């Protein structure tokens, strides 16, 4: 099992990725393509269902399935790949997604988690080798911000611009 950073806590992951063979009724994260291939089959999945999105995924493809989904995982292919920040905000703000928004991939490192949390991510599945405790502390590097943020994963005591 792996540890993830969920809100401010390091916890054991209770979700399974596609291919990890979850127990009956377990929580499963599917690639978007897999879901779209056979939506009816997955609507009948007994457990919670989540979807994993490539950084260039289009929100339109998702809206029909959204009510069924408890988790969206957005891939950050490297720490320089910033597309997921925009996608995260769109999922929260444009689609109004309220479930778990998870950052996943080689780009999810302690030096990026603060930005991710400000874009609406409340969960980070860190890149291999990253220390979840260090990432947890990194969420508190700043307590001031200029921009409005999505979600309240970090505490901001002073902010300049609001939405």
């Amino acid at each position, binding site marked *: 099992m792996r540890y993830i950073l969920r809100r401010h806590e390091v916890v054991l992951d209770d979700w399974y990725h596609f291919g990890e063979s979850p127990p009956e009724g377990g929580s499963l994260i599917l690639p978007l393509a897999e879901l779209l291939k056979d939506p009816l089959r997955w609507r009948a999945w007994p457990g919670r269902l989540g979807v994993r999105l490539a950084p*260039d995924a289009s929100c339109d493809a998702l809206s029909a399935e959204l009510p069924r989904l408890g988790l969206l995982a957005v891939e950050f292919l490297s*720490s*320089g*790949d*910033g*597309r997921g*920040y*925009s*996608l995260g*905000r769109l999922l929260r*703000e*444009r689609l109004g997604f309220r479930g778990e928004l998870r950052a996943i991939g080689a780009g999810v*490192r302690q*030096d*990026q988690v*603060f*930005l*991710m949390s*400000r*874009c609406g991510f409340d969960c980070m599945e860190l890149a291999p080798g990253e220390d979840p405790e260090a990432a947890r502390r990194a969420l508190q*590097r*700043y*307590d*001031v*911000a*200029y*921009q*409005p*943020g*999505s979600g309240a994963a970090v505490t901001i005591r*002073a*902010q*300049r*611009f*609001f*939405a």
Partner: protein
Amino acid sequence: MYQYDELDQAFVEQRVAEFREQTRRHLAGELSEEEFRPLRLRNGLYLQRHAPMLRIAIPYGLLAARQLTKLAAIARRYDRGYGHFTTRQNLQLNWPRLADVPEILAELATVQMHAIQTSGNCVRNVTADHLAGVNPEEVDDPRPYCEIIRQWATLHPEFTYLPRKFKIAVTGSKEDRAASEVHDIGLHLKRDADGCLGFTVLVGGGLGRAPMIGHVIREFLPLAELLAYLEAILRVYNRHGRRDNIHKARIKVLVKSLGPAQFREQVEREWHAGRAHAARLLPEQVERVRAFFQRQPYESLTDTDVSQAGEPAFLAWYRYNTRAHRVPGYRAVFVSLKAHGKVPGDMTAQQMESLAALAERVSFGLIRVTHGQNLLLADVRQSDLHQVWRELQELELAMPNIGTLTDMIACPGLDFCSLANAGTLDLAGQIQKRFDDLDYLYDLGDIEIKISGCMNGCGHHHVGHIGILGVEKRGEEWYQLTLGGSANGFTALGEVIGPSLPKDEVAGAIERMVETYRALRTEGERFIDTLHRVGLEPFKESAYALHPAAA
């Protein structure tokens, strides 16, 4: 000028603390160079040819005397006693030690300065017209809006990892002294028919490989929508800009591939759809920032014509190095960093300290950095000009050559930069030597030479009347010449005139082209206008006089 409040100060201090820890992790081997690189770049730190280079932001070019004094102290303590001012209103230190950088940043934070986002694939230092607020023909002072954009862009959670660097310039007057049309976003202040303030928005300008002039995507954007619209542009770029090829990753490539009309449509759609969640710019926020840029407490004076009486050297300096001011009795004074035989844009710690003291006495304690790599004292009483000239002369900062051929722009080139193909500084020196005679220089009038050491074009060679680009050929430094570029008022990209030349032939070729201009010009005609009238041919011929086959 803008003063930090508690939020701004807390932010820069938290940023320093973060970078101190990142540097510690790197030096302890916990953070590889590959992982450290994007982090140090976003704090202005490059690893250069000889040593790290630290690029310190001077937002929209405005410096308080105490800040310049601090820069001098830092240059002395952590570097070799000098700094280099760049075309984007930054100061570069060429010899700091990596381990000292967190301390340098901490010292900067004590005077409300930083090096945040001066490099890396993020929104860079926002630049403006150096005559902002004093120039008589201005719609409005662009600096408050630069400051607002600076704050909004600082550690923007969505836009800190863009496909490529992103540069924004704001101007408030017709003459484009900030090269805004060759920026990723250029904003031109404007009033609509009802007198409301807003911007014309240009996107997709840029130099480097495939230089491009920005496209107007919105004729008038109301001020209140500024941040929402910037968010829309940046979001379209962040999501759809290319990330597979560094040379195709600037927004100009996206604008070109979609076409400006389609790009505009995407931005407008994103703007409307995203407005509810975009950062809002409230009137009281605008007023708060504008209040910092109110007029100086000018004395009530009348204009005196200083241009007639006095020694010729003073009059030449007055003519070339001072500019009109909107307030009677005042002039704006250039501090030339283009002394012949000195590196363009370089300044010693001693000069910085003395200039800071002078600014305290004669120009409300403020100094500006210009796009042309000079400094400016914006608010000098005309009655002080003679004394200021004397003091600047003593500091070797009074070279009366602003706007002339030897007021060249040059990037640091092969001497410092690890990207460069060829030297720029020694070449600038060779050219200055050829044109050392001031009477000759003045006779030539307004000729802009811009030198870049590589394709990235930091020396803006594409928009020089005469552009010089360093290229590497068989391990040697060669130079390609372009003619007809312009960045001032009317933006145009220069045209390559032929094969590159070896270093020792460049200054001679320029001299011959300039001679061709003198032979062909009509009364009062500028170099660039003669060039437009007669075409490239005669200039080409003279440039390649030593190699007739190449012309």
